[in-house]
């Protein structure tokens, strides 16, 4: 099901943990979705000196987090902003179709953390404000309902026909 690279990053995730006084924090996903990811950045001269993550999620989500931190480490913010979800999936030698959704969390969380750093610098947010949960889809990388593989539109996390309840119980 998973590529060797995915399994390697799942079994030995790189850069796990929290950075005590992080310069930027990005959090994305929620348990409803099944995945939650927090990215911590330590930034010096607009370069990502250190990056750590915490993830609640499936094997793919953990591997994506790990790979993402590897890709971002040492990069300038401008470079890091260009990392896409597709890059992460590619670096992992691909992900199963119904996991592409999860993989989309990775770059989103990184970008959220960078934005958090920039917003703090601009005085827009207090250091411990949490970033909003946002889950947009790239237009080049389609996103699929984790339930039925139907293609999802922007912002959707499940396709409509897979909504849970049949009818209000009597």
């Amino acid at each position: 099901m998973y590529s060797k690279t995915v399994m390697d990053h799942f079994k030995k995730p790189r850069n796990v943990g929290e950075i005590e006084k992080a310069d930027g924090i990005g959090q994305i996903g929620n348990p409803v979705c099944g995945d939650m990811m927090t990215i911590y950045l330590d930034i010096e001269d607009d370069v990502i000196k250190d990056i750590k993550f915490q993830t609640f999620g499936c094997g793919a989500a953990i591997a994506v987090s790990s790979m993402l931190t590897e890709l971002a480490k040492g990069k300038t913010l401008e470079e890091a902003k260009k990392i896409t979800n597709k890059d992460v999936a590619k670096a992992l030698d691909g992900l199963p179709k119904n996991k592409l959704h999860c993989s989309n969390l990775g770059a989103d969380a990184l970008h959220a953390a960078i934005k958090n750093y920039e917003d703090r610098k601009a005085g827009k947010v207090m250091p411990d404000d949490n970033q909003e949960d946002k889950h947009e889809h790239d237009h080049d990388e389609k996103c699929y309902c984790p339930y039925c593989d139907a293609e999802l539109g922007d912002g959707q996390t499940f396709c409509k026909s897979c909504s849970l309840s049949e009818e209000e119980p009597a």
Partner: protein
Amino acid sequence: MGYYNLDHINFKHLVPEASQAMIDAIKAEYGNPSSQHQKGDEAREVLEKSRETMARLINAKDPREIVFTSCGTESVNMAVKGLAWARQDKGKHIVTCNTEHNAVIRSLRRLKQLGFQVTSVPVDKYGVVNPQTVKRAIRESTILVSIMHANNEIGTLHPIGEIAAVCREAGVAYHCDAVDSVGTLPIDVEGLGIDLLSFASNPFYGPKGVGALYIRRGIGLWNLLDGGAQENRKRAGTENLVGIVGMAAAAEVAMRDMEKRIEHYKSLRRHFLAELPKYLEDYLINGHPEQCLPNHISLSVRHVEGESIVLMLDEQGFAVSTRSACASGSLRASHVLLSTGLSFADAQGTLVISFGVDTTTQIIDKFLAALEESVKTLRAISPLYAAAQKEKAGK
């Protein structure tokens, strides 16, 4: 490295009697049970003998009440859709419950697309349906109640005898998806008064992709598979005789060993639950503590996600699952667990552990050690666990 199966709800090996029967059937080169000559006679005999075994397994009065199908899902689809169509002139309302298997849920969703109405009744925190709730949900236009026996995710058993009585009184047909209980627990369709009962072969160590449907005499269904005259004209299509023979052989063993197996399962379950606290904290056991499958445990490990535990345990040589595989492909929190009142996060962290005839307390002990290890690793990564620890420390 050894590899231990603790995922028997999804995968059971064949009992030797079943695999031998199948190999014999392959070598015997049976004919087509529908053909008019000698070769056909032989095949017909084997088929009808297998049908009689099925009737004995669930105490059906007449073997002709048994129709062989290609899986539990087909049985369910045939029962639910077939009855709905056959009775659509009487009414278009169906009652079910919130924790059914996808085979029932999606068959009903399909019927909704065709103009039927469905009421899904809730379950209590153990996942049990109250027969009185079913009774209240039945309307003038209700034609069918479909409520399963053993739930495939939490193992809970519904009071199907009482539900059958409610249906009988209301003049409504009762279908029971008993895929996960037939062959494991005694079932008596005559005694319980069930009209339609779906079951499958693999849950009792028979081959995969073989099932059967019990249709009480006098209950009319529209066929799901229309065509030739097979299966007393109730299910067209050339029979999978090799599979049917294997199912019958497995059923014979299941009947012979049922009591012994149940005792074995129960003692494993007791052992597991007694030992678990030594290895793990912050967990929940789902389902009803007594009215449940004896070989089934649903365990929610808090603050970690289930698939990642499964994957980690797999690496260590243990097969378990997050939920029943037939529902997998879904990454969403289980509707069954949510229905019992679990939070999304806890539902996401749920494992299904199911024992088989070969499982031993030694295997369980090894498993628990591996589980402890895996959970520790994953909690170290988890933002939810970190938050919970902070909160605890803060208090």
